[in-house]
Structures are given as structure tokens and as C-alpha cells.
């Protein structure tokens, strides 16, 4: 599963970092940074949860 982050949409709420710190970080401006683009099936649930919780809708799951 692939995930994507739109840094223009991000409001820096940090929900992704709290939910899935292995996949998401914030830069010095508080804006989302993807740590990985490919999520293994075992980690898909936590990544999906981070995507669902993102307040600004900046995160997406790219089903492939």
C-alpha cells in the first residue's frame, strides 16, 4: 500500500505523527513529511487510521 501527503493542504495538526510516528514526521514548520511511501500489509491499519484522522485531509492512501 502506498501513502501520499499534500504539504500544501497540511495544517500541521500533528495527528499523523501521534498516530503513526513510523510513517509521518513534521518539518520545522510543522508541515507533514512522509518517512516512507510504501507501507507493508502488517502496518496498513495504523497508516489508514492516520489518514482517516488527518483533520485537513492532507493524507491519502493510494491503492495499487
Amino acid at each position, binding site marked *: 500500500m502506498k501513502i501520499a501527503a499534500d504539504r500544501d493542504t497540511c*495544517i*500541521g*495538526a500533528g495527528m499523523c*505523527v501521534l498516530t503513526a510516528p513510523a510513517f509521518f514526521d513534521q518539518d520545522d514548520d510543522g508541515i507533514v513529511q512522509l518517512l516512507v511511501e510504501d507501507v507493508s500489509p502488517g502496518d496498513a491499519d495504523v497508516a489508514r487510521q492516520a489518514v482517516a*484522522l488527518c*483533520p*485537513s*485531509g492532507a493524507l491519502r492512501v493510494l491503492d495499487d
Partner: protein
Amino acid sequence: MTEAPALPLYMQREQFDPVDELVQTRDNDGVTRVPTLFGGPPAYLVTRYEDVREVLSDAVRFSNARTRPFQQPDGPHFTDEELEQMRAGQMLAFDPPDHTRLRRMLTPEFTVRRMRRLEPRIVEIVDAALDDIERAGKPADLVSTFAMPVPSLVICELLGVPYADRAEFQERTGRLLDVSVPMRERMAVVRENRAYMARLVDGAMAAPGEDMIGMLIREHGDDLSHHELIGIASLLLVAGHETTSNMLGLGTLALLRHPDQLALVRDDPAMVGPAVEELLRWLSIVHSGVPRTTTTEVEIAGHTIPAGELVVLALPAANRDPAFITDPGRLDINRGAPGHVAFGHGVHHCLGAPLARMEMRIAFPALLRRFPNLALAAPDDEVDFHTYNAIYGLRSLPITW
């Protein structure tokens, strides 16, 4: 004395719970029209979890910026220029991209990493407050000795507001948020708040410190008007102390009424994070957030809402929607309640949420460990719920240990 106004449906509670009528509205029609406290025509009240999330996540069709204050019949009258000045810097009064511009100046201050750096100082502040309570002896009022001073001192240090001024600004915030106070007087408080903050901003412009007001002046001084600086700082001061404070007071009472869950928060560090989230959901201290105005005709829960109408949200009803969470009326800290809308959703999702979480994650277990036998020092039916506050909470919480 004027009589307190009737509470709008979205503010009515039975202790911790949204009233039956609100629950019935959610489970039957989903949307109902209600009078508001803002004057003007009735608003459309949205109550279901999915609908509330939809409104909050769509800043195009549901605008904050178009929600303008109605001139109150009991005054004072504001000129258009004065209203614009009062609105400047108030992030909640703007839509993207104007909102984005302001919010992005502040996001670096509230990152998860930045909060971790603040943690040791928050621990010190919490411990000092607990020392004071212990020294003064039992019984104590938890609101005035802990729930209020801890977040107040934290936000004062962060912003660069003298803590010595707290009595003054806490009293003003109290009047501002008390909906039983006539609108005339509440609007006057807005003016007083701005005058106070203008003095602080002027001082900081002469010598910007290492705090948030100083940062805004140093890094964004060319881009921010004087009125915007005042607006941002005023919003952060009010939002920073009143909300977390009410969560600490009300949350402690909720735990005292659920002793088995209180024991988990006290004894198991892994339960603290989930407990904070479930308390946020179950208490939903922000009744409704900021009203939105429709920019086009919309349909919610089968109801057609024309363009230009006021939309108000019932956050406690949404957070206890059985379509969102099983057995929603039960406090169950084990579930952690991811996805609650206590901090809102969408682009206006609470800026200070990471700070509020950090403060609560430190304060609740520290309080319960310091006083393992913490108990209510008043009869159960004499607890003083702050019914008329725009943010739900307790006026006082007598405790012993």
C-alpha cells in the same frame, strides 16, 4: 439584574450528558432549527457524527468568514471599521487562504516535537501546584488551585503574558464566555481584552522576547498588522487557559465517579493517553465551536439548507453518536476513542491540541499519584457545573485526600 437567557439546545446538559432532546434530535431528524445566542434568525443544528465531520471538513460550502456578528439590540454599536479590527488575526473568523496564512505562522510552535521540549517545564508547573495544595492542606478547591493555574501559567510563559496579570485576564475571560452575561457587557470585554493585549504587543515590539508574541514580531512583523498581532495573541490566551482548565476540572470529577478507571490512570502509564482521548470525547467541553454559514444550498441528513444560513454543530451529540462508537454513553478509557471531534476537524482543528494533550497527560496522573485517596469533599448533587459557559466545566471542585 437581568434574567439569564434560555440556553440553546446545543448547550444543554444533564451533568456530563447531552440532554434527551438533543439525543432525540440526532437519532430522529439529525438536523433541527434552533434559536442561537448570536441574535438573528434560528440556525440549523447539525448533530450526527458523520454530518458534523462533513461540515467541519468543508470550508468552501461552510464558511467561517461569512459568519458575521449580528448587531445586538442592546448594543454597543460597532462601526464596520471597528468590527474589521476586532476580527483581525482571529483565525476562526477566516477561511482559506486567509486562514492558512495566519495558521502557518503558528504551526511551528505546536509541533509534536516542540511539545516534547516543553514537557519538563509543564511537569515542574504541575508539581509546584500540587506542592501548594498539599501545603495548604485539605480540603481544597481543585479548580482554583490546579485546573485553572496550571494551563494559565503554561500559556502565559509560552505567549509572553505576565502571569501576575492572571486575576485580571481570567476574570475577563470568565465574563466573555459566560452566556448569561448580557451581550453588551461581553462585547465590552472584547474591547478590554484587546486594549490589554495592545499594551503587551507594543512592549514586545520595542523588545521582542523569546516567547510566541516575540517570535511573531521577529519573524512575521513585516507581514502582520498591529491589529492582527493583538487578535492572534488574544485568541491564544483565551483558548489556551480556559479549555484545558475545564477539561482538568471536569475530567477529574468524571474519574472520581468511575473509581476503577481512575485507578488505571493513576497506576498504568500506558492508560493515560487513551484516557485523555476518551475524556475529551465523553466530556466534549466545547459545545459547538464556531458557527458556519452556508455558501450554497446544501443537504444534510436529508434536510435542504439554503445558502447564507447559519449552521451550528452539537459536538457532544456527535461524539456520543452510536454510529461513531459503540455504547457511546459509557466512559471507557480503554478504547482511546480515536476520531472524536472534541478538537473539531478540518482546517480549524484546534491549533493547541498537542499542547492540551501534553498538559492533560502530565496533570491527571500527577494529581492522582500525589493524592492516591483523592475524593470529592462535597455531596454528589452539590457539584457546581458551569452551565452558562460557552465551554463546559465546573466553577469549583471541592476535594479531599
